[in-house]
């Protein structure tokens, strides 16, 4: 049983453990960070602090609509809702499409899922994918390290 914030990503119903959530806000202007991996949409100013913004669409391509696979995910932009999470002192804003509700989820025995998320159900038995925020951050961190070591130049 886990208390979560539920959001939409494409047609998928996703969730993040409330313990990691610091706040939800609307993005201001996003400054791109050239040479950073694609998952880093940029950095934003949140009350004077510089917060990296991740594109969850980019990080979780497999949970999206099976539409046109060549279509790149829409860019993260000012006005998008973001969920700011904090894990081990690292604060990042996760750009999502829509923030839906706060609810409680139960684990399902279903074997599907990935390193980055696992399937859960809510009280109305709706399938909801719980994002493993720590794993997402670790994966992003690895990508950033790779980019920092080589870079496209």
């Amino acid at each position: 049983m886990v208390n979560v914030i539920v959001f939409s990503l494409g047609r998928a119903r996703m969730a993040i453990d409330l313990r990691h959530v610091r706040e939800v806000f609307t993005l201001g202007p996003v400054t791109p960070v050239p040479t950073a991996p694609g998952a880093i949409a940029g950095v934003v100013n949140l009350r004077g602090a510089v917060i990296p913004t991740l594109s969850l669409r980019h990080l979780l391509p497999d949970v999206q609509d099976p539409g046109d696979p060549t279509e790149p995910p829409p860019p993260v932009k000012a006005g998008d809702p973001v969920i700011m999470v904090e894990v081990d002192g690292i604060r990042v804003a996760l750009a999502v499409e829509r923030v839906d509700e706060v609810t409680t989820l139960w684990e399902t025995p279903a074997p599907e899922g990935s390193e980055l998320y696992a399937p859960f159900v809510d009280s109305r038995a709706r399938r909801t994918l719980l994002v493993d925020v720590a794993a997402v951050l670790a994966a992003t961190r690895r990508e950033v390290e790779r980019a920092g070591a080589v870079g496209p130049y």
Partner: protein
Amino acid sequence: MAPQSGDWDPEEAAVLRTFFLEEAHDHLENIVAALMGLEALGETAPGDRPPPRSKELIDELFRKVHTLKGSASTVGQHLVSEAAHLLEESFVRLRAGQMGLTRATIDTWLSATDLLRETVEAVDDERAAAAVAQLRHELAAEAVDGAQRAAAGAAALAAQVTAVAEVAVERAGLPPLDEDTGERELDLSRAGGPSPMQRQSTDGNTLRVEVARVDELMDAASELVFDHTRIDRRAQEIRSALRELDDVSAELGAAFGEVRAFAPPGSEDLIGRFGELESAAIGAVAQLDRAARALVDDAEALRRTAVALQQGLTRVRMMSVRWLFARLARPLRDLAREEGKQVDLITMGEDTELDKTVVEQITDPLIHLVRNAVTHGVEPTAARVAAGKSPSGRVTIEARQEGDSVYLEVSDDGSGIDPTRLRRALVGTRRMTEAQAAATPNDQILASIFEPGVSTRQVADQGAGRGVGLDVVKQNILRLGGDIVVASDLGAGTRFTIRLPLTTAILQALLFKTGGQVYAVPHVHVSDTIAVGRVHGRVPSEIEWEGSRLAVMAFDALLGLPAPADEARAPVIVLAFGDRQLGLVCDKLVGPREIVVKTLGPLLAPLKLYSGATISGSGKVQLILDVAELVARAPSLAPAHDATSLGNDDPEVTAERLGIGEVTGEALPLPRVLVVDDSRTMRESIARILGGAGYVIETAVDGREAWDVLLERRFDLMVTDLEMPRMGGYELIARVRRVPALRSLPIIVVSARASDPKKSRALELGAQLFMPKPVSRGDLVKQVDTLIGNAASTR
């Protein structure tokens, strides 16, 4: 006080542990200081009359170790308590005069203290506590009587405490000891322990605050400044709308007058109502205008408060260098012992303050310099005596503040650096030819010790190589925005002078635009701003600048962005980092700014290209570039066609270079414009308009400041307001025109009230052009282009 850890709930225990760690570090440092103080008093044999000051120091040792013991047991850290107790016990024999004070015992106690520190950091372990019991048992057996036995006991104690500490360390899951340095890498921030700053003095009326909290306040304070900018902009918008409204109501009034003249009889009531409405509108406009002015004043008050808050918080981040100096004593002493030399450390200016971040980052370079001074500077005792010097050498560290800089000087009275040997080494490593080395003055030869690889082992063996790792020291200092120079007198000693910025929280930066984004580079690394012509849309890979060749790199290409297609001339920022230079091509120069530096956070830290970020007046994040990383990515210059150089003279390479040489003539300095206005909004908006048009902008808040700047630096044009505090526009123009060198400087006056007498007076005094506020972007750029073009063609 509750003696058991079980009495605390987990949260309380965590808080207490933090407090305890802070306190324990204070005690440990005091113990080390007292031990080193004892050592300085000289050796004694058992039963000797103790030196006069020793009682005080021994009492201090007792107090500290005893307090540590008590605190440890209070928070349930019994392992630490036991270890402290063992140390205390061994001090008892010293106090009782049962043992002499030898260097060996001090050594043992110092390392025992180190081990105690490790135990402190690896707290809470029951199995380790059992090991302590064992330790006490063995120590009791060991410590029979007599000085020799006591010394051996202390050594055993050390070994046992090591065992205990290692068990504790293992249990606590800490990283193992570094085999080379004997140090343990501990991430104290993650362990919830204190940062070095937090374990400064415990005396006095002080408050310990986590650095992160201060940083949060800094963020909030800088956000207030941005709030001001936004409010100010809104107020200006309101005022300009009001001016329009004023004009409209005046026109309405005039039109109404005409209507009245032709009004048919019987419409008096209607006309009367119109008149009332007209005066009501005028009254409302005036009232709104007053409110808008008051709003501007309030915003300015807000800005001042915010700036004061920012400055206050910057002060909070400062710490005295006393702690830094204290950290140097130990490595110096250990190394001197190892080398069998006598070296005294003398510190001066301990109360000088530096930003905490700077202190943290300068500690290792400084330790390196001190170690170098002991190893390579101070001679062995015999050599010193033979040279007629005092047997013990001196290493002096002095700190002092001058303006926005702090100077740290590390000097020794050793043998100095031999320029002859250094020359030989430079020739030997093929860095210079014999002739070049002979022709280079001593100070430049000396400066080469900061170059990577100069102090090879071979050179060091010749006694000239003071510079083992000095290139790294210099890199670290440059990264902080500082610099280091060396001076040396052969036979008399060497002095390293480090200049550091007072703070790294505020940075003087040059802002530029590429790919639609604004980036910042620290001004301290900017040598010049020039322009180069593009050939077939591309900039050359090298140009000639100030008589030498400069590698050029397009920033957009570095970032993987497309180059702007239509620009013929590209602005180039000449960056210098140490002895490396790079011309960085950007789309547009924005201008110099004072910026507040923010971290990009741990996630983006691996991107070495950025050293941080700042937030613009409109609240947008702008990235700060790491100049060290940029110059490291600079393309290497093609080998020069130069008979004296050691490079090859492949004809193809030469031809390529000559081809590039054709465009080198186009490296022109960008025109510089001085903007003088007491309104920040006006200054900023004019600076942005002209900066966007490719001019380099400096600003001044009034005539007085402008006058000072004009006498110091060259400008191609000045834009000034008329009414300003201290010195107004008329006086400034009159003064400028009296100076022959400035007589041809084009001047544009931008003024709110465009009355004819004012305009003609400004033009009479020598301004070229009068533009009423608000100025339009297109007009201003056109006029500035024309005036600068005219001035250039008549020169």
